[in-house]
């Protein structure tokens, strides 16, 4: 029997029923009496000077209450987590087609959108920076200070020495696309203001506490008078980490005194929303003839679009992950993040590690092919072990499970009996198996304060309230929190009432991002829970007249060890109430950090990583280039599993998302214009495209984690992309260095080999 009552079990989502039946209301579903609709006027050009904005016709239009421009922004007309370089409402320049130029507030959605056409803006178009290499050279500046947002270079050992000692050097350049989160609920929310000037913003947000700072700064408004509630949210995946509509919502309600709702439509979300940023990654890798990695040199450029958002941090994570979860003695890793007039690049599940994983894992397959070494053995040979120095020269926390995840795949039937799975009964169908590894730094890394906090309150009746800030954006951390609390407090999950994602009532627990919340929140909950436990012992000891150290928790009660003598939580709560007291326990938890810090690359490195290996079986139709991913086997190491069902959900969702990235997803831009603008041309996988997915976890105990857990929300998105690409290469013997690899691309690449109609 497991030592745990809840931890490690498959537990259904606490909000599953409400979401499935529509009882749960997303933030953008909220409606208030007397509510106005806001519509945002977007830029007409990808790059232009604004010579004048004329709003009088729009203001006179039916149902319009106000038209706001830069003049109406009371505080700093700029926001951004890293650099405040994005205007709330553009004043003299637009830098991409998604830029906000004006906000119309009207009695109905129709009136608001109709009025957009009546706003006249004088633009003077500027040359467009659309290519990231170009951005480094051109005289055209997206921002005054130039087009380089950040440049980092981190070395370990002596890379040239590594290349000299290498028997084989492989050099290749890889390209990754701009991917959209395609959350169910687009960006937006509702804001209200009361007669005392208290503003409440219900918004799709991954960090409501940070939103308050940004809203207050732009509105020049006291933070105490702003509340952000981020619950329920229809998906985030990183795309709601930076501000989207929050400041405009607050501004709208402040200016009109009425509730204001803004919901970006799908096309707006595509054009204006943040995306996974495209990268060009050149790798030069040196290896001995028996497959030992000696040196890896990377040059990475990231197309950040017009504003920093989290882009420069993402570029740095690509640098950190550019040599994969392997021991490489000599590395030289360089990255640039540059401004362009394309769509904004920002956080997306994987946060730069995804792009880096694609490059290094394709590179490893190339090496395996050139050396004639089995791709799994090659990876196993180089897999990072506990206490070895990682990519940037630091020693990660000793929960390095990459080798175990590879062993798991090695022992799987799909790998052992490849021959069987690779057979097809049609001359035009070719099958291949590919695999890839990845890792993902959990948390915010060095330098940045990274903490979590939770409050637990004993309620009358013996139940508990659990309060925690970092929102549940749909990934199920709320369920994990409740399971952890139930475990510590020895009660049923139904006995925990969760409050989450509300800046007024829940303690700041950091952002929901960076594979961090189950770990951080979990630790804070355990510590708050332990305080609660100590308090319960103290009360029970008083009530039962026994010393606290003779007590233990049993379901819903404190009992004397080896005895039937006990007092229930309900009885303790009742007693406290009579004495005019209550129990509330708060605890904060701070992340451990690595033994190294880079002044010139703040945030790097991470200390704790999740590890993962995945393999895919694909079938390619060489007549058309179509790829069917038939099976995926994923072996994640997320430390101890908290919720088995949650882990599998992440592994499956991440696999499908990464598969879409490999095969079909891309926002194509030419000269800052969008070639695809809606979901009929931006293609994501459907259930029909999803493979059979098997999750076989490895649980490498993380000493600092809640019950030994690490994070997993992002790593699951990384290895499947190169695994699928490597499988296609395996099937066809072709080379692929650019994703998405569409049927058309694959068809023309394969045609030389397999021209069935000519042979």
């Amino acid at each position, binding site marked *: 029997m497991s030592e745990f009552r809840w931890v490690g079990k498959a537990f259904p989502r606490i909000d599953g029923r409400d979401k499935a039946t529509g009882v749960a209301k997303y933030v953008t579903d909220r409606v208030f009496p007397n509510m106005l609709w806001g519509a945002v006027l977007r830029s007409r050009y990808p790059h232009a000077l604004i010579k004048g904005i004329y709003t009088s016709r729009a203001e006179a239009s039916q149902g319009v209450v106000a038209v706001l421009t830069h003049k109406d922004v009371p505080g700093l007309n700029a926001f951004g987590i890293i650099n405040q370089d994005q205007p709330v409402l553009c004043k003299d320049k637009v830098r991409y087609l998604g830029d906000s130029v004006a906000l119309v507030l009207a009695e109905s959605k129709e009136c608001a*959108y109709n009025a957009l056409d009546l706003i006249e803006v004088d633009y003077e178009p500027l040359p467009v920076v659309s290519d990231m290499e170009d951005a480094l050279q051109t005289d055209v500046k997206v921002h005054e200070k130039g087009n380089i947002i950040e440049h980092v270079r981190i070395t370990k050992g002596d890379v040239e020495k590594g290349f000299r000692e290498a028997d084989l050097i492989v050099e290749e350049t890889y390209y990754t696309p701009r991917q959209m989160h395609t959350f169910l609920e687009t960006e937006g929310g509702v804001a209200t203001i009361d007669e005392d000037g208290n503003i409440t913003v219900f918004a799709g947000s991954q960090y409501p506490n940070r939103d308050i700072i940004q809203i207050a700064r732009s509105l020049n408004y006291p933070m105490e008078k702003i509340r952000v509630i981020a619950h329920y949210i229809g998906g985030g995946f990183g795309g709601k980490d930076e501000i989207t509509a929050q400041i405009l919502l607050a501004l709208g309600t402040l200016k009109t005194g009425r509730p204001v709702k803004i919901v970006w439509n799908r096309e707006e979300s595509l054009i204006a929303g943040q995306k996974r940023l495209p990268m060009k990654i050149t790798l030069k890798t040196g290896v001995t003839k028996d497959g030992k990695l000696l040196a890896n040199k990377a040059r990475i450029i990231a197309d950040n679009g017009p504003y920093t958002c989290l882009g420069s941090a993402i570029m740095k994570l690509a640098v950190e992950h550019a040599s994969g979860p392997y021991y490489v003695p000599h590395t030289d890793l360089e990255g640039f993040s540059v401004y362009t007039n394309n769509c904004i690049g920002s956080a997306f599940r994987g946060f730069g590690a995804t792009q880096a994983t694609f490059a290094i894992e394709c590179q490893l397959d190339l090496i395996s092919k050139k050396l004639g070494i089995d791709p799994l053995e090659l990876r196993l040979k180089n897999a990072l072990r506990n206490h070895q120095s990682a990519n940037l020269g630091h020693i990660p926390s000793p929960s390095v499970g990459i080798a175990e995840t590879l062993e798991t795949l090695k022992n799987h039937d799909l790998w052992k009996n490849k021959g069987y799975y690779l057979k097809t009964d049609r001359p035009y169908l070719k099958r291949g198996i590919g695999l890839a590894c990845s890792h993902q730094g959990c948390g915010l890394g060095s330098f940045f304060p990274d903490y979590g906090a939770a409050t637990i309150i004993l309620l009358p009746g013996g139940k508990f309230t659990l309060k925690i800030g970092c929102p549940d954006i749909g990934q199920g951390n709320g369920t994990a929190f409740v399971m952890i609390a139930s475990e510590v407090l020895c009660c049923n999950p139904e006995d925990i009432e969760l409050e989450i994602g509300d800046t007024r009532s829940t303690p700041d627990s950091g952002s929901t991002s960076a594979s961090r919340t189950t770990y951080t929140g979990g630790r804070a909950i355990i510590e708050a829970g332990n305080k609660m436990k100590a308090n319960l012992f103290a009360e029970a000891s008083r009530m039962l007249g026994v010393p606290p150290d003779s007590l233990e928790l049993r379901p819903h009660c404190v009992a004397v060890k080896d005895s039937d003598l006990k007092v229930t939580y309900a009885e303790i709560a009742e007693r406290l109430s009579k004495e005019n007291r209550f129990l509330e326990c708060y605890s904060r938890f701070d992340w451990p950090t690595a033994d190294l810090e880079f002044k010139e690359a703040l945030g790097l490195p991470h200390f704790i990583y999740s590890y993962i290996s995945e393999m895919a079986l694909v079938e390619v139709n060489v*007549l058309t280039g179509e790829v*069917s991913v038939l099976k995926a086997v994923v072996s994640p190491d997320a430390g101890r599993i908290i919720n088995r069902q949650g882990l599998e959900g992440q592994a499956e969702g991440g696999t499908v998302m990464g598969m879409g990235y490999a095969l079909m997803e891309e926002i194509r831009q030419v000269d800052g214009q969008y070639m695809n603008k809606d979901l*009929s041309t931006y293609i994501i996988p459907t259930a029909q*495209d999803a493979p059979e997915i098997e999750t076989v976890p490895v649980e490498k105990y993380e000493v600092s984690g809640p019950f030994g857990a690490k994070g997993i929300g992002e790593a699951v998105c990384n290895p499947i992309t190169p695994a699928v690409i490597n499988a296609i290469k395996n099937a066809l013997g072709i080379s692929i260095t650019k994703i998405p690899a569409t*049927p*058309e691309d694959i*068809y023309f690449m394969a*045609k030389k080999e397999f021209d069935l109609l000519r042979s």
Partner: protein
Amino acid sequence: MLKAFELIRPSNLAEALAAVASGATPLAGGTDLLVRMKKGMLAPKKIVDLSGLKELSEIKEDEENIILGSLVTHGDVVDSELTNNYLPLLVQGCRTVGSPQIRNTGTLGGNIVNASPAADSVPPLVALGAKVVLSSVNGEREMKLQEFLAGPGKTLKRPDELLTSIVVKKMKPEERCLYRKLGQRKSLAISIASVAVKFGFDPETKKCSNPGVAFGAVGPVVRRAVELERLLEQKKLDQQAIKEIASKAREFCDPISDIRASAEYRREMCCSLLYEALYELTC
């Protein structure tokens, strides 16, 4: 966003015909029309909602034909015993349309009148030599579907006409058929290219009879590839022959390049899809 319009809900075909005669735009499942209206590409003042008209929703048979009311949905075609027995090629086509929701809402009539070159029920119907029946207050006329289709988004339907039914010769039990659609993903995909093939086949002699071949999404309209049909009839369909015939398919299309695919890829796909279909039907 939808603009305001007048909605007419007729209780029978005569009322519906009167409404179109007065200039109302027909609405069937709305899966094409409403999308366009929401995008602001169309803003009809008057709309006649056909969806209540039982007389246009039936699948019937006579001695030789299956008669499909224009309001028959793709889902109806997939489920009906008559179509499964006599028009398996059409069933295959309708099964690839959109998603279950779209198949249960979108109609054959809408698919045809919308006249997209990528409409998935159309290549099967054209390959089967289907006819359409058009009605107006002044009477009824019938024409071959292939002639009815005049260009992307264009048909020979007059503004006062409704498409009321589609008449298709029953396939013979020994006839083989395949609808092969290539999309950007496995469902909810708009065809990049597609082919509908049907013929009688004698596995002994490898000779084929009564062939029908039509390509979708590779020209302004779906049309029968009569020359390919002739080749199919002439040759003994061994491996060599099906390769030769399939290789000629590129000559019978006139594709465009768009966000989904290049013209060159589409051209090559005519050959590939035809080859795959012939392989599946003869090997």
